[in-house]
């Protein structure tokens, strides 16, 4: 367990940055609303950012040697298949992928 002062610093830093990211855009909305640049970025960023987060987290889950990379790829494929095959029900897809990964890591 890290020191309390470190934890409090983490909580404070994340609160300030997170709140600023969510709140400040409303304050500067009017000039930005017309901006072609921001409009384009808003259209381009989400899918790519989420894809990078997905790949990065799958990569870190697959670290640790052995067959973990294969397990992570199988669980990812299951997540995609369930999500596309069963009407994009996030709860179901996440449970299926996580369940398969937990089973493979602990039993296989």
């Amino acid at each position, binding site marked *: 367990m890290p020191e309390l002062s470190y934890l409090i610093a983490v909580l404070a830093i994340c609160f300030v940055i997170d709140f600023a990211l*969510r709140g400040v855009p409303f304050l500067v909305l009017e000039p930005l609303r017309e901006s072609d640049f921001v409009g384009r970025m808003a259209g381009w960023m989400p899918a790519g950012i989420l894809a990078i987060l*997905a790949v990065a987290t799958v990569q870190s889950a697959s670290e640790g040697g052995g067959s973990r990379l294969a397990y992570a790829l199988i669980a990812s494929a299951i997540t995609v298949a369930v999500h596309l095959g069963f009407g994009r029900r996030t709860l179901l897809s996440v449970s299926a992928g996580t369940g398969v990964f937990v089973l493979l890591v602990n039993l296989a």
Partner: protein
Amino acid sequence: MSRRSEVREGIRISLPAGLGMFPLGLAFGLLVIQAGLEWWVAPALSIAVYAGSLEFLLVSLIVVSAPLLTVAVTTLLVNFRHVFYAFTFPLKVVRNPIAKLYSAYSLTDEAFAITAAKPDGWTAWRLVSMQIALQIYWVGGGLAGVLIGSLLPAGIEGLDFALCALFITLTLDASRTKKEVPSLLLAASCYAFAAVAFPQAAMFAGLLLFVAVLIIRYVIERARGKANA
């Protein structure tokens, strides 16, 4: 409509998201315990930070006592997408200053997605009660998770894959049309480059590189547009 029925409607709208958020919060609470952190770290993060994916990442950073600068940059990059939610989120229906602050503070992916899917008919009571309900599912799930986690004799390995699976589903949901293909290819290339060039900080480097490449893309498209005009 009356205040009471607006609150009821807000809670009703929040339920499908809650079905996903409560179990994910539970997984988060389990992770906090398994990482060897005190139980209160789960609700503390879910109140101070309140951003599911970032909270999972923060646990892994806190466990290794990552430098505060790393924590700050991670927060900035992972949650930067929230900047764009202000364009469509109906915050203007909320008049009370405290309710307005709460609504902006609790503007999560889920809250945004719910309003984006159904843009009309929002009132202050409906919007804020929906957002409070979402945070209750999340914090409640986290508390249930730390409780279960402290009762389990041994940790369950691999539960952190819930975060990977969540990002995979969010990526799929954000990539429904052909328009997203260039962004996905650019993002994949940026991450592949970052993973080779900066293996210790592949995610941050990949995200930064991706934003830089998108700026270049914008400049090029603009120049082309001007040339055609």
